[in-house]
């Protein structure tokens, strides 16, 4: 296992120490340790069943770890309620409130926040606008396309101005065009709001296209955590070489013959 921290002197935004979790006596996370810098885009890459979704649910507090701790800005939040962690989560299946409009979805949680209740419509509209969804504000979400629904779901998270956004395979239900559009929007949000993003995927290309660093997971442990280029140049073990590097190379080779005409 090779874990390379970001080489800065700034304190870590998120620190994860020795997280373990078992379900029905089977350990699915074997002591996960890593850290994330403020404003960083971290991709967690692994095949389905490797424990990456469980890790994400532990980070936001939807699951409780058997051992280990989660620190946000140095403060231990392992026991904190999900809503007190200054994090937001976006699910693969959008998890929208289908009886409401796009705007209704985004401003719903703001209704319960006394400090922002009065300005909730404006905040929600701004969040929708930052994802290019302002024109759809008053449309029932049930009628939107997958890509549009996912953008509403991200706007809903963004409206609560979280410091960290967790994305659980947000693009896997979308077609190729919607994927590309969503990718660039995610990068824009990271840039404009300085939000830390943790992005889970099983898609090598997507993980590498977006991330400042990539964390390769397999069977409940971290195989390598490094900048994308370093992983390609120096895979930590045969798993990383086969699952990540070989796969990227195959994708590249299949397209290489188009390289010069495309230029």
């Amino acid at each position, binding site marked *: 296992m090779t874990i390379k921290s970001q080489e800065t002197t700034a304190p870590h935004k998120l620190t994860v120490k020795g997280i373990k979790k078992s379900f029905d006596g089977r350990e699915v996370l074997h002591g996960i340790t890593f850290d994330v810098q403020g404003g960083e885009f971290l991709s967690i890459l692994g095949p389905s069943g490797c424990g990456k979704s469980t890790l994400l*649910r532990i980070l*936001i*507090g*939807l699951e409780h770890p058997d051992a280990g701790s989660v620190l946000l800005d140095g403060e231990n939040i392992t026991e904190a*309620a*999900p*809503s*007190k*962690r200054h*994090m*937001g*989560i976006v*699910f693969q*299946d*959008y*998890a*929208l*409130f*289908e*009886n*409401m409009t796009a705007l209704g979805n985004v401003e*719903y*949680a703001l209704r*319960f*926040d006394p400090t922002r209740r009065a300005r909730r419509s404006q905040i929600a509209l701004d969040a929708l606008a930052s994802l290019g969804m302002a024109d759809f504000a008053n449309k*029932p979400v*049930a*009628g939107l396309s997958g890509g549009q629904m996912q953008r509403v779901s991200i706007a*809903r998270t963004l409206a*609560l101005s979280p410091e960290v956004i967790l994305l659980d395979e947000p693009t896997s239900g979308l077609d190729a065009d919607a994927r590309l559009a969503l990718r660039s929007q995610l990068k824009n949000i990271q840039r404009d709001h300085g939000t830390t993003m943790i992005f889970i995927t099983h898609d090598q290309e997507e993980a590498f296209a977006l991330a400042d660093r990539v964390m390769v997971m397999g069977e409940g442990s971290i195989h390598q955590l490094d900048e994308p280029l370093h992983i390609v140049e120096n895979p930590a073990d045969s798993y990383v070489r086969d699952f990540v590097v070989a796969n990227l190379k195959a994708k590249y080779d299949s397209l290489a013959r188009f390289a010069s005409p495309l230029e």
Partner: protein
Amino acid sequence: MARQTSSKGMGLLKIALLLFFLLAVVLPLVGMFSRLADPQVREVFGTPAFASACVNSLVVAAITTVISVLAALLMSWVLCRTAIQGKSVFAVLLTVPMLVPSLAHGMSLVYLLGSNGILTNLLHGSWSIYGFPGIVMGSFLYSFPPAFLMIYDVMRYEDATPYQAADVLGIPKPSQFAHITLPFLRKPLISAAFATFALVITDYGVPLMVGGKVTTLPVLMYQNAVGLLDFDTGAAIGFVLLIPAVIDFLVDVLARDRASVRYVSRGFDLKPNAVRDAVGYVAAVIVTLALLAPIATFCMVSFATKYPLDLTPTLASIGRAFTMGAGSYWVNSLFTAFVVSILGTILAYLVAYITARVGGVSARLLHLASVTTLAVPGIVLGLSFALAFKGSLIYGTFAILILVNLVHFIASPYLMAYNSLSKVNKNLEAVGQTMGVGRARIVLDVLVPATADTIAEMFSFFFVNCMVTISAVSFLSTTLDMPLALLVTDLDAQRLVECSAFVSVLILVTNVIEKVVVAAIRRYRHTQQPVSR
């Protein structure tokens, strides 16, 4: 911290609901059947009366099951695979018999085909329907609609693709029916058969009215427990009646899980076929007439001057029925039905929420408890309540009627809510938690609106069943809180035939109004909230 308190609240709720099922289902039944430990009680099983009632019940239930299920299959085929006009009208008409008590079906057969029946006199017939023919006919009226719904609801969503493939391969239609349709319908057919059997064998309304000298088990139980106050015999027979219901329950549980209803299915393009449509139309008209003629008869009798001698229409019997107290019984029924529908819907929804969306060991127990009530026939439940709660505060009050109906009918609305809540996105509560919005708010703001149609259906199910039920309540009601459906036998026994018929009409009309109001509210909601998918 918020998470801690909410899970504590959920734990308390689970315990409260489990206690409810323990007190209202398990303990009364255990109490009742513990009487069987007494060898003297078990002597009932050796009596000739019991043996003949057993045979009668089995014969009636077996014959009715075959007729009802075949007719239900035929009607499902007609409505799904022919191009006849007015399918939706037929679909509604075929379920109308569910809106009247089984007593009324038995009674109407007597008015129509009994020794002084309208048709008997008209055709100078010399037949006798009392006994097996009457019980089978009445039980058919009573059990056809649920059997039809079970098969029709599966058949209408069948995928046309296998048939198109078969057409391309040149497989003849009869073979397609035998090798595609029947295997597809195997599970609903088995479920419908067992459900019909259990429904018929535990009903006392029809055999009480047209049974003549043929006594079935529920009638024997009713005569002993209500007539002779011999609760031991009642309990012993009740135990026997539990057997077919438990078998039906097991079959249903085994068949349900693997029932394959495809969400995406290609509809049937029905090619023009005049012969097929003509046959279908004739069949639909015959079955519909057979189901509705008895209902039309009691509607007619209720407005007759003096049945069967003078059928001139008059409104006199309405006035007389109300002088006999129909009004206050009606209020009793409406009150009970409303309270049960509201409480029952809330209770079933809460339980379904826990089992479908919270999970855990106690959730599995709650699921088992609520589904198991399907296996307890009304008369068994009623007698067990009478024995368990005699002398308690609630005995002889509306509270016990409400409680028994709630328990008796909770399984189906529970399953409706369970299925509906299971389909809603599983991550909504998680999203709520991360945003600081509690479960209760998500339920009220998101899940209830998302499942509003199901909630309306649940309410309607409780309401209609409370209006027509006679089984459980017959052991528990007093003259003060007696429901309207039981007045049918009372007035009939007093030879107030027209009044008795009018009471059935009143129940029918009440249920039709309830159905229409619920449908109107649903339609209004849909126009208010256009969902464009």
